[in-house]
């Protein structure tokens, strides 16, 4: 399934993450901004990519603004954004 429209999920509250997704041809671009970049930046990006892969998203532009969300929360927000971007929500 492809990302067919711009979508977003989550909030900018502490312990949450805000995820925006938009269509992109032939590339999966992940842009991360996190309050725990130094401590968890790599882990978060790996998580984002894994969830996108599980959702079958091969091409998209994804921007994550992380406010210190736990992994399960980031997973939820990325999945929700992907579902919305596919028009499945």
């Amino acid at each position: 399934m492809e990302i067919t429209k711009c979508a977003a999920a989550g909030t900018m509250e502490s312990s949450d993450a805000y995820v925006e997704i938009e269509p992109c041809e032939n590339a999966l671009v992940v842009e991360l901004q996190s309050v725990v970049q130094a401590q968890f930046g790599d882990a978060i990006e790996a998580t984002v990519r894994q969830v996108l892969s599980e959702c079958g998203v091969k091409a998209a532009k994804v921007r994550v603004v992380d406010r210190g969300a736990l992994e399960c929360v980031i997973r939820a927000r990325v999945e929700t954004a992907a579902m919305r971007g596919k028009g499945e929500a």
Partner: protein
Amino acid sequence: MRRSMLFLPGNNPNMLINGNCLGSDAVIFDLEDAVSPAEKDAARILVRNTMRYMDFRGCELIVRINSIDTPYWQRDLDAILPQQPGLILLPKTGTAKDVQEADAYITELEQKLGFAPNTVGLMPLIETALGVENAFAIATAADRVQALFLGAEDLTADLHCKRTKEGREIEYARTRLVMAARAAGVEVYDTPFTDVNDDEGIYKDASYAKALGFSGKASISPRHVGAINQVFSPSQADIDYAYEVMDAIALAKEQGKGAIALRGKMIDAPIVARAEQTIAMAEALGLGRSEQ
């Protein structure tokens, strides 16, 4: 044991991830009233993930799904059931048929998931006049039903009356629900007390609910959990008396007596049953007999 059940809004990560630290015996992840229609999908996934990845040992997980007259409830169950919640709280239950409809879908999912039948319990939320009048039928509509739950906010709206702190307007509903639940052999839980800052009020309200026969009480604020737990826990005097009853029974058996009195009162089967309940609860709470 569900002395206290704390509602947590289903789309609020900060509340969900700390749910097991707030002192309640159970938490209710809310996908219904606490979540706006535009965020139903987000909350459903967030609650599912929280249940899947977080450790909630020592705290029972209950999920309030959306009511069966909405387009959401089946998708809620699709996402939540694999995580094996202790109970599903079914809002706006008005008739036995509502219960059977939800039960049929949960049964289907349980089979798909390979769960034993009735792994996941159902707790109808009675919050309409119709629901109150049908309480016994609802409680006995499926084996899956483990408890009834009174929701006074929606109920008072349905009754065209004002919700008050004193709660005279829900007197009938409370007693009716306790009666129906006990007749059906299921538990029954009281509606939240809504004034977050009234520490004395919650204590009174919970004590009254306990006196009517409720098994526990829900809360919308972590601040109320301590008072609710205290009210619904056996007191030291209750525990000591329960042990005295069991001692007296043991002594009577030893001496071959059929009947025995304690503190001038005949000990009969209901007193023994109550003593056993008290001791079971005390043991679960790590409480013992006072030293004398």
